[in-house]
């Protein structure tokens, strides 16, 4: 599958919702508006594009810029041996984006990790809780305004209520 054809098809289908398509260091990047994420995901997962694998999902905090957050998805197509990076900018205030759990099962943990580290809310996620940190942890450690050496108070032993 040629990347050019894929990008043309995407542009035809979603026209003005595709913000930008670029290439950097040999990687193909597509920037979309956050509200069409699930449609794009469903579109890419189907044949002939066949991006059957969600390789990775993460977030970048561009503090001091608006839109502040940027969700980064890496899709991989086994049949075409092709990687694609899809990015969706999110506002700094109440960042919400649709969950990809209906399409890829590993999105469950990946989205929980991003929620844990950045505080992005995934709409439609079945069980959005912190993954690595404990429930009482305050703040979102991978945000740029979280100090590197900040200490959190020691929590008391949990007991059955």
């Amino acid at each position, binding site marked *: 599958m040629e990347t050019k054809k894929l990008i043309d098809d995407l542009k035809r289908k979603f026209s003005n919702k595709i913000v930008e398509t670029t290439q950097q260091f040999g990687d193909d990047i597509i920037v979309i508006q956050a509200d069409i994420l699930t449609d794009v995901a469903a579109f890419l997962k189907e044949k002939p594009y066949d991006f059957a694998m969600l390789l990775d999902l993460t977030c*970048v905090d561009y503090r001091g810029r608006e839109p502040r957050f940027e969700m980064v998805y890496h899709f991989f197509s086994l049949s075409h041996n092709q990687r694609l990076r899809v990015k969706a900018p999110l506002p700094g205030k109440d960042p919400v984006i649709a969950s990809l759990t209906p399409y890829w099962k590993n999105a469950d943990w990946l989205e929980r990790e991003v929620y844990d580290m950045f505080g992005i809310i995934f709409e439609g996620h079945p069980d959005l809780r912190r993954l*690595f940190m404990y429930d009482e942890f305050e703040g979102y450690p991978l945000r740029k305004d979280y100090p590197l050496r900040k200490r959190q108070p020691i929590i008391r032993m*949990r007991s059955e209520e």
Partner: protein
Amino acid sequence: MTTKTRIQKEADKENLMINMGPSHPAMHGTIRIMLELDGEKVLNSEVEVGYLHRGFEKTCENRTYFNLLPYTDRLNYVSPLINNCGYVMTMEKMLGIETPEKAQIIRVIMCELSRIADHLTALAAMTMECGAFTVFLYYIQAREEIWNVIEQTTGARMTTSYIRIGGVRADLHPDFEEQLKKAVTVTRKVLKDVKGLLDKNKIWMDRTRNVAVVSPETAVNYGFTGPCLRASGVYYDVRKAHPYLVYDRINFEVPLGEKGDNYDRYAVRMKEMEQSLRIVEQAVGMLPKSRAPLSSKEGIEPAEAVKASREKRETRKIRLSPNLEGSEKERYSDILSRTANAVVPPKEDTYTTIEGLISHFKFFMKGHGIRPPKGEVYFSVEGGSGELGFYIVSDGTDKPYRLHLRAPCFHIVAALEEMIKGHYVADIIPTFGSTNMIGGEMDR
């Protein structure tokens, strides 16, 4: 007040709830599995991770590109060289650095040795927990030999930091091939012995056949990579799909499983180790002859050289610290790229010339070291348990703006709940062993 976890909400009050871990002899690494049991049958479970979370990504974002390398050793601590290689090659992709051929071949050898060590450890743990203690000892004996080779080359067994941006830290030891031959012979023998002990062993087959079957569709849907994906019969290996280093010039096969059960995950790893040995042997044959003379203990002390160079340019040989053996100036063209400001300048120059001293300071000074262009990059290598990817966002300074690791076992452990559902408590142990969960890599 804490929120209830999923299983606490879903579980039937009649059923027995059991915690496995986080400190449990079979939960190597710290992970907690909450089980809802009916007798010995697992009805439902929940996996809790994060006990080894130490903020790898946040730490890296506050270190320079050169200084964060040792942190990558501590990801998958059984195969640190592959982690080094993954990070370094991501940086090289961003900086556009070409590495010398010898360095590339050394990297291939080191990565494959690490892969063998990784598979040996994974299988050793898995088999031991099923009661095959002899097999465990055999595996560990082979791993010991492999780590001897790694120690001889890199100076460390686990925290290697050997593969550097632009090449490798030091040239191979003069006795390298001899030591390697010994390790390969021992590993071959161990693999043969273990095959004889396990492949048709009734107990082993009963414990692993048809347990935790993962269909190809499920495996792909969960983002499985590496031996676990190939055990389900899906052909995908980063070394074949996106060849890096000199893998495209080496003959090797990608073994596949049939069913995707625990036995297949064991069998695929066994076959992969044989292929890795093949790769190592081919790569050793490809090594170009070194033009540099052997390291010698002769020469003048560095302090004397520094003093003498104040008067006139010092041309005598300098005796470097034993820690720098193999990275003398004459070897630089073999093992490190010539790209300016990406590799540490030779120590001999730093001691005796003002230009060398300036470039040394420029390399290590805050805000001056390796500064890749603005942009973002993703690159992956085939790690011990799957595709090990690095996603780095650069803002043009000497620190990564964002560094994210795609940990292969994260995706596999995410499927553990589904894999153990409906099986017995005793089956959790080999299933968990076959995922090869490494806490350092998954929790980051």
